[in-house]
């Protein structure tokens, strides 16, 4: 195309905007018509006035609003994704990754549990809560001047924090908000025609704001300095961009629930078709998003899954193959890699920090053994060990393995996160993001449901198979592209979305208590015994030498692919090895504790924030922090609301995320 253009000088490159836009629009229209056709047909061929009245009601009050709601919500998600990606200059940004979706979800929950606010439920409340989440992320990232990557990191932490809040609330008020569990899988709200018109009013302000924003946001792609140089008010534009995107997200969540996939995938699909300019990108993302959601809803309705297969699941089912095809065909152009630069000064040398953390770990473990409903003084441990104190022995046999499992799993997830972030060269990578965790969890869950009586080794094998199969698929798909970071991350995101949605669907289909099962999914150490710890330990021990061997090559990789290759590194091999090791660590941990969030994603950053950058230092520090965090969460979850148990997975985020956010804001002040 460039050659042609050079021969025939035209001013604007013949970007096939219409050639791409028209088929998309046609597709969307087709899907919408297909959804409406049966009802329309029923109306036109109705044998009598009663049937015609029923069909008319069905068409005008139920089916058409549902189609329009799907279109509008999908379009809003698509546009919000495109905006967030432009604001942060990261193609992996999306409303759910920035915490905005989770914030809006909290808004729904508040609307349900606080009767006084019931009148405000809907987009306004969701917008306020989503904006609260975005502000929290911004505040931690260091305000409007925060570089995009910091913003993404802080947003990720906020998202985890808020979903942890949601889980805890679910655990505590199970009966009151049982409906939310269903909703949180994402399903199209059916407000009827009036409700839809009312909701649509909330779509207007962001839509009106968009044209004023687009050109400034587009210029952000040049970099902040260049954009400032040509007269773009970078900070206000970013501010307005976030507000607008949040409003769009709030609207979409109010209509359709927290459907995460559309905002990420729609703009990337459009970009893969060669569209770069923001105006076209936003318009087409809206179309693609609406089409995706509508098609997914059609699949749900067409297959007759009324409640089980939610729209979110179907969206993932429809969207994943599309994204994967693009990755395989190599149509996703990578932006220039940017390594994260969370600059910070080292608090102390490793020789001080590591033993200190080790001591803290020992102290916390001892405290965890002692503290609980019954206080166990260390003196009783000895007698219990000697066989003289049966009560103490029993309590220790409950508390001991939980702490051991927490420590080992925390270390493994942290190590996995460090390796993944370096290999993928994206600070948002983590076992959760690559789909490894979700793959392992799905395999374990399906196994447990199919053969309720299987034992530990089989569970282990299932988790490993699930995690490694996910990784294998990712590697296979990206083999020809030498495991380049962005395609790997996108493939992983596609799988994680798909598997999480499927897991959720399995739970809803098979369990009478969706809330309970949802809590299982958060991960935890409840009821883990010594054999669990014994089973987990070898995996950690085996991986330690491998981690030590990989740490220097991983350091080289931070210089960039070319520089690392120039220094004699086999980059493709290192990536494959690193991914394999990380997947193994994460899968083994998931087999025992379930998909524990936060640890793998954010402990690597914690280690960096306290000043450890080289992998030889960062790995041990991150692992110790991971163990500390997980044990702390385990103890707190056990004791805080006894006899109710808060899942450790929720607490790791509840403890870790605020600390992380605080460190981020403090680190910024230190460097300026």
């Amino acid at each position, binding site marked *: 195309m460039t050659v042609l253009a050079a021969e025939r000088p035209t001013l604007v490159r013949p970007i096939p905007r219409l050639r791409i836009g028209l088929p998309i629009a046609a597709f969307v229209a087709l899907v919408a018509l297909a959804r409406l056709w049966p009802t329309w047909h029923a109306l036109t061929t109705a044998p009598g006035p009663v049937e015609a009245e029923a069909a008319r009601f069905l068409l005008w009050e139920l089916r058409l609003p549902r189609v329009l709601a799907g279109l509008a919500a999908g379009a809003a998600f698509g546009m919000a994704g495109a905006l967030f990606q432009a604001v942060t200059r990261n193609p992996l940004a999306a409303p759910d990754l920035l915490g905005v979706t989770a914030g809006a979800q909290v808004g729904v929950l508040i609307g349900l549990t606080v009767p006084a606010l019931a009148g405000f439920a809907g987009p306004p409340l969701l917008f306020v809560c989503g904006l609260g989440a975005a502000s929290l992320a911004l505040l931690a990232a260091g305000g409007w001047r925060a570089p995009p990557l910091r913003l993404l990191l802080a947003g990720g932490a906020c998202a985890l924090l808020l979903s942890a809040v949601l889980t805890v609330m679910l655990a505590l008020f199970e009966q009151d908000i049982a409906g939310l569990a269903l909703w949180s899988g994402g399903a199209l709200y059916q407000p009827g025609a009036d409700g839809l018109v009312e909701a649509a009013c909330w779509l207007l302000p962001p839509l009106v704001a968009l044209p004023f924003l687009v050109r400034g946001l587009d210029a952000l792609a040049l970099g902040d300095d260049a954009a400032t140089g*040509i007269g773009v008010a970078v900070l206000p534009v970013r501010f307005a961009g976030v507000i607008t995107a949040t409003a769009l997200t709030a609207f979409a969540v109010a209509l359709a629930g927290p459907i995460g996939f559309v905002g990420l995938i729609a703009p990337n699909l459009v970009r893969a078709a060669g569209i770069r300019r923001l105006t076209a990108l936003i318009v087409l993302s809206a179309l693609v998003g609406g089409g995706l959601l509508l098609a997914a809803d059609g699949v749900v309705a067409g297959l007759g899954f009324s409640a089980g297969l939610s729209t979110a699941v179907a969206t993932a089912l429809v969207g994943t193959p599309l994204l994967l095809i693009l990755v395989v065909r190599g149509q996703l152009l990578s932006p220039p890699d940017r390594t994260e630069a969370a600059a910070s000064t080292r608090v102390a040398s490793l020789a001080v920090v590591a033993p200190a953390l080790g001591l803290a770990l020992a102290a916390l473990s001892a405290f965890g053994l002692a503290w609980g409903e019954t206080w166990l003084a260390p003196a009783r441990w000895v007698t219990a060990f000697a066989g003289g104190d049966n009560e103490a022995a029993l309590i220790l046999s409950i508390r001991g393995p939980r702490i051991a499992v927490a420590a080992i799993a925390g270390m493994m997830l942290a190590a996995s996160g460090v390796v993944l972030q370096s290999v993928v060269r994206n600070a948002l990578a983590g076992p959760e993001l690559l789909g490894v965790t979700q793959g392992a969890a799905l395999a374990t869950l399906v196994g447990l449901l199919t053969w309720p009586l299987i034992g530990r080794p089989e569970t282990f094998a299932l988790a490993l198979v699930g995690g490694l199969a996910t990784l294998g698929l990712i590697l296979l798909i990206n083999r020809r592209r030498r495991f380049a970071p962005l395609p790997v991350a996108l493939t992983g995101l596609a799988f994680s979305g798909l598997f999480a949605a499927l897991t959720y669907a399995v739970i809803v289909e098979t369990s009478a208590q969706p809330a309970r099962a949802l809590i299982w999914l958060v991960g935890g150490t409840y009821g883990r015994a010594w054999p669990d710890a014994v089973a987990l330990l070898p995996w950690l021990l085996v991986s330690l030498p491998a981690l030590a061997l990989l740490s220097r090559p991983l350091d080289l990789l931070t210089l960039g692919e070319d520089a690392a290759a120039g220094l004699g590194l086999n980059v493709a091999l290192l990536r494959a090895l690193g991914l394999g090791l990380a997947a193994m660590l994460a899968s083994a941990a998931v087999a025992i504790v379930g998909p524990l969030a936060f640890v793998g994603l954010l402990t690597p950053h914690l280690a960096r924030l306290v000043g450890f950058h080289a992998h030889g230092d960062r790995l041990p520090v991150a692992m110790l922090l991971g163990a500390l965090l997980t044990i702390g969460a385990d103890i707190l979850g056990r004791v805080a609301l006894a006899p109710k148990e808060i899942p450790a997975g929720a607490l790791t985020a509840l403890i870790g995320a605020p600390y992380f956010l605080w460190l981020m804001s403090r680190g910024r002040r230190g460097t300026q």
Partner: protein
Amino acid sequence: MSGAIALEGRTLTVAYGGRRVLDGLEVAITAGGVTALCGPNGCGKSTLLRALAGLQPIQAGSVRIDGRALGTLRRRERARALALLAQANEVPAGLTVFELAAYGRHAHRPLIGGLSTTDRTAILDALSATGLREHAARDVTALSGGERQRAWIAMALAQQCRVLLLDEPTTWLDVRHQVELVLALKALNRERGITIVCVLHDLNQAAALADRVLLMQAGRILHDGPPDQVLTPDNLAEVYGVEMWRLDHPESAAPLCVPAFAPVRHRSHEFRS
């Protein structure tokens, strides 16, 4: 050197984390001239350039453009008055040369609406001035290094400003592209009267391009004047700490500075740590 002052910095002080990079620096750029900023790495050249462009927060002092304080100008006014070409520029994938240059019109356009005829004329004019007219529809990423640099200059020209600031525009280019760029800048200055301030590492380029050289060290301007007066062996030894030969260009008699490759004098204590 008696023309009007286009750009002026008064008692400029810039500090990064407590370290003063510029310390009460005074500088006045003559309108219609070409000024080269030279000096060793870390002497504050780029910081000074960014401060003059209003991109660098300054702790004390002020920048005035055409007699007006830069801080009081609105963002768009400033973009119409001066343009800065940064050292390393990100090139977003899938952008044509024309589209890149069109970004330069941002400060001239209303918030909504397409390019006006004036905009198009300005963009095409900028592309012609940089010799990129026939490359208008090409992808910026598909250009050679020299062409890409000129595409960024075209963007700055499309801003239609009177002052153009460039940070090491020739650093990544081969000799041919360096020469082309220097000639292009000279032509812009001569034919359009654009005031140019340029950070340069190559002293011979500075001598060929500029009518005035500012030699900086450790956040201060030590020498200021025409190239043949500033680029003397003594001054260069003082600033860079190496022995240099000073020759005359056989044709233009412009100064040529060649390192003697004699052992470096140890004077590191004079640099700020």
